[in-house]
């Protein structure tokens, strides 16, 4: 019964594909999988917008949307209709073709990367031998589309926003990839399914075999999530769109459905990178406890995804925006060295485990490398800086 439920989508897909003649079967199976991915994650986007607005409202001591439908949960439908029937304003000076193509160039790569995410047992669209590399390669194409949007609008604010976004994405892509490298080193494969398989099973004390429960994995996960926040332009790294500084950054000159597409692309990028974090560090679709294996694997993936989304919303409601110099200093002086040290820590772990040393010894040495370098690096960066109470001239 549990197995049936676990494989229910695979079985349904197989039975639908079986209805077609043999020649069409690969095409039908691809179309089914693509439709499922677009449908599921686009509806997750709709639900998340409500959750986000309600969560932010809760944090800021107000209600959030509560008028459309029960508890305001039909708000995305109203927003969607509004976006569709709004006039599409294109500036006269804008570069029409590039301005039209930019939202598409944002959304298409955002959806493409889902192809390599294992959503459940046997539920991955294409199992590339170099799946993680595919994810980062497609993700890199987003930078160009952001530039297209900012440049084609012929607006100073949007060009500034695009420049900020590209500078930020390039800077944080390095710690993002370097923190993922640790997992690739330990597993010895770039394939997402093999990475998930390597995290199967449980320790003797009941903890699952996830990489986040190793010292290098924990440090890598934290670094990866910080870099992912910056990569998806979310608060506190939302300088590219900082409303109070450059209005809305690279998508000022977009209205109606094109704006909705940017919004969609941004959230899709966030879900995708959270999905990659789950795959790399949080054990993919594996259950956290051996007793909970009865729950279908895809449910675990989405439970973890919702938990990460919740943290994203929480962080957005809590932290103020960084300044540009703080952003760059943080990336190059803290994240990059930490990610490099973390690679060394993963290598030490690999050889200690291979030498057959007991688990707690590997753990202690790994934790000492990570924590020691964190403390030394933090101390070193704060040296000579005086932190005193800030006084504001006009805001008090």
């Amino acid at each position, binding site marked *: 019964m549990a197995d049936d439920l676990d494989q229910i989508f695979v079985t349904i897909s197989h039975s639908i594909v079986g209805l077609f003649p043999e020649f069409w079967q690969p095409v039908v199976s691809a179309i089914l999988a693509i439709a499922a991915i677009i449908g599921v994650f686009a509806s997750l986007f709709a639900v998340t917008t409500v959750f986000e607005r309600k969560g932010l409202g809760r944090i800021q001591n107000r209600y959030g949307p509560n008028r459309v439908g029960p508890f305001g949960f039909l708000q995305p439908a109203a927003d969607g209709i509004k976006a569709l029937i709004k006039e599409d304003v294109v500036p006269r000076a804008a*570069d029409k073709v*590039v301005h039209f193509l930019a939202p598409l160039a944002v959304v298409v790569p955002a959806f493409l990367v889902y192809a390599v995410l294992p959503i459940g047992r046997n539920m991955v669209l294409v199992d*590339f*031998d*170099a799946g993680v*590399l*595919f994810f*980062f*390669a*497609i993700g*890199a*194409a987003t*930078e*160009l589309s952001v*530039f*297209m949007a900012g*440049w084609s609008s*012929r607006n100073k604010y949007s060009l500034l926003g695009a420049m900020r976004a*590209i500078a930020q994405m*390039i800077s944080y*892509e390095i710690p993002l990839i370097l923190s993922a490298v640790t997992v690739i080193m330990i597993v*010895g*494969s*770039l394939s997402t399914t093999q990475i998930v398989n390597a995290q199967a099973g449980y320790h003797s004390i009941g903890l699952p075999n996830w990489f986040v429960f190793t010292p290098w994995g924990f440090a890598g996960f934290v670094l990866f999530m910080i870099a992912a926040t910056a990569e998806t332009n979310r608060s506190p790294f939302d300088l590219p769109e900082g409303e109070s500084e450059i209005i809305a950054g690279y998508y000022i000159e977009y209205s109606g459905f094109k704006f909705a597409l940017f919004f969609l692309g941004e959230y899709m990028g966030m879900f995708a990178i959270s999905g990659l974090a789950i795959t790399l560090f949080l054990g993919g679709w594996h259950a956290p406890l051996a007793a909970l294996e009865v729950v279908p694997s895809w449910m675990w993936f989405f439970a973890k995804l919702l938990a990460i989304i919740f943290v994203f919303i929480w962080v957005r409601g809590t932290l103020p925006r960084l300044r540009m110099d703080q952003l760059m200093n943080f990336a190059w002086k803290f994240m990059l060295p930490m990610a490099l040290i973390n690679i060394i820590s993963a290598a030490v772990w690999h050889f200690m485990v291979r030498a057959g040393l007991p688990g707690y010894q590997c753990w202690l040495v790994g934790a000492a490398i990570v924590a020691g370098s964190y403390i030394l690096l933090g101390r070193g960066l704060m040296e000579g800086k005086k932190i005193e109470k800030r006084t504001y001239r006009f805001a008090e």
Partner: protein
Amino acid sequence: MNIVFAIIAAVTIAAAVAAMSLRNLVHCALALAVAFAGIAAAYLQLGAQFVGFTQLLVYVGAVAILVVFAILLTRGSEPPQQTVLSSGWITGILVTIAVLGILVFAIAKSSLIKGEAAAQPTLTVRQIGEALMNKFVLPMEVIGLLLTAALIGAVIIAMKEEK
């Protein structure tokens, strides 16, 4: 010659032609990025996943951005009104013909075109990694050193001069 290859080739060549002939430099850079992506697709179609994805990561992700930044930082925002053909077009044609000749010569001599193509080897990323770390470890280290030197040089140029 199958349909997929025909589509990839057509898109790549069209983008390359556009990159040469469009008037606005930023449009040229974007068309160039499409051509890079088309070459990556051709690699993928040949079964070279690692090379294809790396092509995408390096050329579309980094080189195209670099080109675009260079254009924006060195030119005004107004689209330039210059002729499509640059003054050195005769030299250009000569160089192109020379390169084409060398390529045709090399391909004609290649063993692939004569005998039946051998069974396509399935090359995994693991094999590439092992080759890089064992057989070609010295060249890789040298390239790493060179890139580090370039990085440090760039930082030194960008650094403010101490007064």
